[in-house]
């Protein structure tokens, strides 16, 4: 399982504020978990919390692997 880091977030300010509440912002470290294509959702774990985002929203987040 690889670790990734948020490098940039596209989208409007409301979206960024929304993500901020879940501790998703530039610099956030996360894992991408098992997310089957069919459901069009992406599962992330940040710390000990698991979150599921719509794929279209997740695509606005730019990130790189750090490990």
């Amino acid at each position, binding site marked *: 399982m690889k670790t990734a880091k948020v490098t940039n977030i596209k989208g409007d*300010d*409301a*979206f*960024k*504020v*929304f*993500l*901020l*509440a*879940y*501790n998703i*912002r530039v610099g956030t470290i996360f894992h991408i*978990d*098992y*997310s*089957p*294509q*069919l*459901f*069009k*959702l992406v*599962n992330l*774990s940040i*710390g*000990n*919390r*698991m*979150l*599921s*985002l*719509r794929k279209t*929203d997740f695509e606005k987040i730019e990130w790189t692997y750090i490990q």
Partner: protein
Amino acid sequence: MDIYTMSELVLVGQPNAGKTSLFNQLTGLNQKVGNYAGVTVQVKTGQFQKKKVTDLPGLYSLDTNSPEEVISKNYLLDLSPSGNTVLFVANGMQLEESLVLFSQVADLQLPSIFVINFKDEMQRNQLQVDERSLQQRLGCPVVSVNSNNGDGFDDLRRVIDKWSTHIPKAINLSAHAEVKGMEVDNYYRERLQANVSLKELETDYSSRVKAVEGIVRESVQGLSGTKYLSKTKQWDHILLHPVWGVLIFLFILFLVFQAVFSLSSYPMDWIDATMGFLVEWVNNTLPEGWFRSLLADGIIAGIGGVIIFIPQIAILFLLLGILEHTGYLARISFISDVFLKRFGLSGHSVIPLMTSWACAIPAIMSTRIITNPRERLALIFASPLMTCSARLPVYTILIAILFPADAYFGAQGFALLLLYLLGVVATLVVAWLVSKNTQEEEQNYWILELPIFRMPNWRNIIYSMYLKTKSFVVEAGKVILFISIVLWFLASYSPHNEARLQELHTQEQATAPANIEVSQESVNLEYSYLGYAGKAIEPVIRPLGYDWKIGIALISSFAAREVFVGTLATIYSIESEEEMSIVQRLQSERVGNTERPRYDWATSISLLLFYVFALQCMSTVAIVKKETGTWKYAIIQFVFMLVLAYVFAFGAYQLLSF
């Protein structure tokens, strides 16, 4: 007097921090509800040692704008430092996230206690908190507890008693605010109510995270690199699998259905028998007169009409509670989101949708957890179209007329399945229509927290089942009882006097077919106000294949749909409410003096469709008004569903009787 005398404890925390569990531990069943669908969706209050305890909806941050979180935020902003203490509940396994929220709450400068929950899981994962050091850093008492079994609650009680007046150190506010004694001139409070730029929020957030990281470094050991999530992630490979996951989901749905219907049938029979016995007892004990009639046919019938649903609803809540507390319910949301999205709904709609198989009232109340206003309205509009339990007795009778049990093997079950499917399809289509056409604001972002899998805590499940069922009884009960009494009045009183009614009875008996005995009750009903109402609407419902007798039954089922059956039994002078005797009697009923059966295919299908679509339930109308805050939606919905019902029933009758 100590100005700090505490009168109210306010529970604050992130979702899934264990607030409800802690609240239950503190208050027992001594709580007032507003809580639906497992999650805390409304401000709940209870009592602990003569103090009021308030449980606020969980929130991730004070900076978000979802309706629920705003409730919590505003509640906090209205609190004053004297008399209120914030009991901040942190998930010990997510300490950093919890501390970031706590830093925001701390900046409001209210007396606080920092409660670290999930003590057991922390121990299991070798996470150690130096409470003393944390206490010093935060400037308020810190207690670790396990809200599942009550471990640590002696400490918590002691702290609440002795140490609940400490105002925590401000984490970020110190830069701007001045705290002058009791008077809080608080920049942060103002900022929360104002529109702040993203930049400012980000800066604020970063500085909080930095501060929290420092605190955690000093006071917590073993936080990074835990294997906490690994088991859950393994399970998710199966439970979220595109094939296995969907199959397991469908299987569980089937199990829930089976359990709800098979388990509830015993207590329902029992309730039915008890109510019958009560009516008989009243009729045998009290002197004849309006009071006896009101009690037996109005009040007891009305109360019976509510409690007959309790078994199904309670069992459904029990099962939903188990699904929620094990963590599986969130996976159902995950799996169904992609499908529900097409209809303007989302994975969050799963709870209201499943609940509406039992009853639309708790379903509509549970839509409070939906943060997207447009989705919520669509759900409120559409969920009464799901097949609720009050429709079942009506369906059962009509299906038995259409498909005599011995004639076509399996046809009855198949017909019922089709009706359920029709309900689901109608719900989705209407949800889609509403979300396309409403001006209600659309929230574009969607997120779902997937809690870890764990053994459920039975006490929490039973509590929430009890509280939700109670709330259903109160909400539905008052309307059903009221309508029952009104209907009793309309059915018991007549513009004619008794002598005239007896005369009419003799006349009817003389003209009735030889094999049918007309009862006086049936004639009384025919010439009652309700009977006249049935006759008055006959011209309107004739194109649907109904006569005034069905008209009376339609009107009376506005109390609750299943009243349809009882009313027909009275109209057709059927002594017993045995299903078979009603079915036989209905089958032998003819149209006027012709040989044509009254309940032929065309009329029966037309009636079935009418009951699929019509909002034949005043309690639902009342709850829609309450939840949307206006009569507008309640009336639009009622009329819309009535038109839908009429059109479908009309179409079916005209086609089939062609």
